[in-house]
């Protein structure tokens, strides 16, 4: 069984998704469901905390690509945080840092949303 968990928490106008374990072609549909739920609930300010994400393949990266446009159309964004160097390397190989905001720390990303709101 693939070890992957998603934990979702809401606070102060920002939804935080925590990813844990292995995000591959088997578990990517779980992340897709989480993003669909956010869109249905009209939660467009999303921080994805990757602190406990051990592994990501292109199937997982594809989910971020598929949903960011819908979220940005609604004046929101997906901001990524707390990546290990190993996980960051995969995002970097595909050019993610050009199109996504990636922060070292979750609080930094949450603060960015608050600054925009002001």
């Amino acid at each position, binding site marked *: 069984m693939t*070890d992957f968990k998603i934990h979702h928490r809401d606070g102060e106008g920002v939804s935080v998704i925590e990813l844990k374990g292995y995000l591959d*072609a088997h578990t990517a549909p779980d992340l897709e469901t989480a993003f669909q739920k956010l869109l249905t609930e009209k939660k467009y300010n999303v921080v994805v905390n990757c602190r406990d994400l051990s592994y990501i*393949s*292109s199937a997982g990266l594809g989910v971020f*690509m598929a949903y960011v446009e*819908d979220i940005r159309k609604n004046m929101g964004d997906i901001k990524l945080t707390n990546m290990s160097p*190993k996980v960051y*390397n*995969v995002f970097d190989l595909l050019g993610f840092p050009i199109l996504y905001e990636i922060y070292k720390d979750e609080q930094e990303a949450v603060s960015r949303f608050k600054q925009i709101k002001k």
Partner: protein
Amino acid sequence: METKAKHISKRIVSRTESLVEVRKFVDTAARAFGFSEEDVANIILAVDEACTNIIKHAYHYAVDQEIEISIFPSTRSFEIRIYDNGKAFDPSLIRTPDLKDHIGHKRRGGLGVYLMKRLMDKVEYNFIPGKRNEVRLIKYRSTASTVPGG
């Protein structure tokens, strides 16, 4: 000292659940070969991408087909050969992905093939019509990782 060529194989069923087994198999072999943590991670990801492509494109998610992964370590290189009996997949049709193009179009294709090329030293495809398809992934031993653990 010569590294003895000893090939090891694993067969899995064409299900995404099997990817975890594939990663463990490759992890053990790449570590035993003496690769650095970074190289081990890159090889694991490349093999995962190759198997994911087979499950999706060669077998179209049929869950009862077979994929064989064979690893051939030699003095200078670590070669993984992956075989399937599904539809031949022509990687030359895959363009280098433009991330901007992918965003919002729910297009996922091409990312895996692109990653495999970036992560490995060599990626080759061989198709034997009516028989089986083969993907070869090769990583050369770098001078920095010739001594296991050193």
